[in-house]
């Protein structure tokens, strides 16, 4: 198995681990970011071809990497970024309202 894929899995693992293990809201957001990065890395990886060049064809090239995952990655980045922004805004709000970043202490809603 190729190393980059292992890196993807490790990143994915780390992100999920951060999300479910941490009590700190900011760290959870960081975890989300890590998972997203791992997925984007995966997208880049699947577009990769050994010896391929970037899909900007100013002349003829022998081997060009797959442009679709790159476009998808861009989309995923933008979506992920927007999500993170909203998340952070909510974290700020929560911190102001609840005075804590501990995820288990923000619970007025239950039952």
């Amino acid at each position: 198995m190729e190393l980059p894929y292992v890196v993807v899995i490790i990143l994915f693992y780390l992100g999920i681990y951060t999300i479910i293990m941490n009590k700190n809201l900011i760290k959870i957001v960081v975890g989300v970011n890590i998972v997203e990065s791992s997925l984007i890395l995966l997208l880049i990886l699947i577009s990769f071809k050994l010896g391929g060049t970037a899909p900007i064809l100013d002349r003829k090239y022998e081997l060009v990497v797959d442009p679709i995952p790159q476009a998808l990655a861009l989309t995923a980045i933008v979506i992920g970024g927007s999500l993170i922004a909203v998340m952070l805004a909510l974290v700020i709000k929560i911190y102001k309202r609840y005075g804590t970043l501990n995820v288990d202490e923000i619970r007025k809603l239950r039952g």
Partner: protein
Amino acid sequence: MSRVHKIFRKFYKIGLVLFLAIFLLFIFDEIQNLDIKRYLSEHYISEGVQETGAINLVTSVLYDYRGFDTLGEATVILTAAATLSFMTPIKKVKMLGTEFTIIIYQTIIIIIPFLVVLGMNLIFFGHISPGGGFVGGVILAMIPILVTINYGITFSENKLKPNHKSLLEGIGAIGFILLGLLGIFAGSNFLASGQANFGLGNPGELISAGLIPYLNLMIGIKVGAGLAAIFNSLIKEG
């Protein structure tokens, strides 16, 4: 008792994630032994330049083959900006953060024209070189962001009012759709460019690739304004 419970819980969590990782490892391993089919991308690579007129294939995927996705993600940014703007208070803004020295102020001022030109370049040359609306928009968004961290949010919002930002965002998004609609008016489908005979020109030239440069511009405006708005909203909390 509770400590044992806690330890158990921790190991349980670790076990879960470990299982997931190992599972993924096996799946990825198995996937790599399979034949990969890339008919679609091979088509894009061999015909994409002729079909869309853009030599940057990522751009041609983003704005032509899969332009609809781009509309969707533009909407996501707009939604995020709108969300953040209603979550932050309009009044009573206190600026957080450490004060900069005059040295930093001056540098920021100097690089603003540089950023404008760079951003515009990325946007307008998005179809013939690396770049495009998103990157260009991000670079452009750095200008108000720099001004904000430099002179404070009040000054920044005085120069470029939040309303103007949302106006710009709206113009970008509406422009994108209207450009897409041109395809329909030209007798083809939504977001058609080459298919609707909007001159694709000679690939590699500035004026080529049909609608793509204009779509790039719209996205650039939208992303720029949206990011600036998002940044300001995020730091607004005092």
